[in-house]
């Protein structure tokens, strides 16, 4: 299973499914990362975590641990 965590910087991927539950998952979805949406991985923070992605035409940052919940293709 490929997750958003594994995506290299500069790649665009499509979200397949969100795993996990509760507050973090809801928050990720509220911010627009839902099934079928395209996510462009823009960069890593200078210390290697979190990541910055472009989704629905705006910039979003999330931790790698949370990015792991997002299955992509």
């Amino acid at each position, binding site marked *: 299973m490929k997750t958003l965590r594994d995506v290299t910087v500069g790649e665009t991927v499509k979200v397949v499914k969100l795993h996990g539950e509760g507050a973090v998952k809801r928050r990720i979805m509220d911010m627009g990362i839902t099934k079928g949406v395209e996510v462009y991985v823009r960069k890593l923070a200078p*210390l290697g975590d*979190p990541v910055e992605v472009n989704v629905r035409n705006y910039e979003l940052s999330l931790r790698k641990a949370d990015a792991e919940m997002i299955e992509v293709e």
Partner: protein
Amino acid sequence: MDKQLRIALAGNPNSGKTTLFNKLTGSNQFVGNWPGVTVEKKEGRLIVDKEVILTDLPGIYSLSPYTLEEVVARNYLIEEKPDAILNIVDATNLERNLYLTTQLTELGIPVVIALNMMDLVKKAGDSINVKELSRQLGCQIVEISALKGEGVTEAAKAAIEAAKHGKTIPQHSFSGPVEHALAHIEEVTVHNLPEEQQRWYAIKIFERDEKVLEQLKVPADVRAHIENDITAAEKELDDDAESIITNERYVYIGQMLKGIYKKKGKGQLSVSDKIDKIVTNRILALPIFALIMFLVYALSMGASITDGGISIGTFLTDWANDVLGGAWLTDGSRAILEGWNVAPWLVGLISDGIFAGVGAVLGFVPQMLVLFLMLCLLEDCGYMARIAFIMDRIFRKFGLSGKSFIPMLVGTGCGVPGVMATRTIENERDRRMTIMTTTFIPCGAKMPIIGLIAGALFGGSTWVATSAYFIGIAAIVISGIMLKKTKMFAGDPAPFVMELPAYHLPAWGNVLRGTWERGWSFIKRAGTVIVVSSIVIWFLTSFGSVNGQFGMVDDLYEDDSVVTDEYVAQVAERMGIPEDEVEPMDDSILARVAQPVSIVFKPLGFGDWKPTAATVTGLVAKEEVVANFGIMYAYDDQNGEEELEENGDQIWGRVAEDFNAFSGGHGRLAAYSFMIFNLLCAPCFAAIGAIKREMNSRKWTWFAIAYQCGFAWVTAFIVWQLGRIFVGGMNVIGLILALVMLALIGWQLFKPYKEAQKLTVQ
């Protein structure tokens, strides 16, 4: 007269909500907090109609039950039922902004959309069919530019009109299985609720929203019944209920926008993207961050422009302390009052108690205003979010936010603005944790204490000061890790899924207003705490009972019939000092109280009344600690001797002698333990006032102070007890206790930790 109309202003963070609120209400604003939480609440009267109250809801992305801001906002909308919602929508970020709109339209409250930043959309060559969007959403849309003030009045008028006559019916529907379940839920659970709110409640029940289920007290059998419907829908759509709803909202918006939003340019880098490419670049980000932090610090708290630095804040604060506070308020008021032949005790109270206290508050104001100005700038232009992005990795390990860096940096100058700088941290748990730990960092006023100890007992060694910073940082790290595992902090989840807003030029109106609001709230609230406590401390040091007579000790000591030689001998014996060193202060209430209280510090190695009294007066201001040592070690600057140095170098010899005497020859260890306690214990009253203001809760304020004092005590205890293994005079019971405390800390540090999923808000 009509009933007073109330309109709620709702929208995403960074959508221009604050700008719009300021434009709509002008100076008719009242700033406070939502009850019981640290979230700020703003209300104001509309300029176009003073009878209408506009409530600025916290900036939110959704009405989920997981973040404090969202819970505050939805509770207000459901319970207070404002007459209309003015929903500000950022046209450059339509999809995510409309996601909130779809939820707002379900509440049964008329919604008017203020479509902001349309000018930017047009500039980019894109187009939005506003008429069609309005039809599809079922609510009126007014195009505005909050920054330029265009369309703002029209939006307000439309909202008033909607509040009087409007009705918004949600136009979007969910998929078949969901609607089927919703119909069932409406039928069995929410039919006795107000009709217009039924749909919202039904959707929340479908999502298994715990807060709503609790509130409605749905009976178990009914719940089981609905549960069947929900699971059926979940099975059919192969997802959990919450995700289904979220998903379908976004799908609906995507479908709707297909014909409405026409994008021309694609893939072009905006100015903001170009800036961000440099500013959060992997290599450049940290140096740029360091430079910005240096500027923030140097301009506000650093060396004054008169001392070769660049700080305007320090320059003005020095002036306020020396001239305004010292000369005009304290000395000036004394001269005037004495001129009026006011009773000496009253002169003392007003000049030394109240005005010295007020002066202390005023002294901070310039530094704080400069600092807040810069923080508001960083926030408004979009850099603050990047700070969290850059620093998150380090700080989240100890339960803090990446934004906690700023309060701590500022705290090295002064804890008061440090605590107030926590306001930029959105997450309440991170904020509280930062408020509690910021003052562990040695502030400027603690430097003289370090200087005194280093000079008196360690030959001026620089490692004392260095170690003080290490202890401060270690205290933050250890406290962060320990506290985040406690019940008090376990309740709130802290998802770090954060928007990085586009950079833009700061809106000066917002920045200046934000700066002033923070400055004023400090003057008002912290001011009262400081004034009252200054009066109390002044009373405790000035009054006492001398040879059976109660009064001002300075006056009583003038009277030889009261202070007989015999009495002086008694005092000297009680205090354990030579007769010629007896001072009026030795009879003050503070000295009398400090004597028995000093038992508390016995296990820390400095259970003597002098360090005890110095510690207590340190609550007024940490500079007072050294000044009080001066008084207690009978340094007399009246008799031709020069004024006591800031680090008290004239009394080093006496301090060293005394510490060695009462600690059984372990003066160094005792002094170090004393220093640790004073660095970590409760900060000065000004900072406590700031903590109270920012915590917005008596319970949390007391908890913070108790924790700081407790942590300081335990740390000093461990240092003193373990230290004596090496310097001699080991106490077996003390050693065992110290080891037990260490073990408990270690256990709390290393026990496993699980992030909470549920938000606990009353």
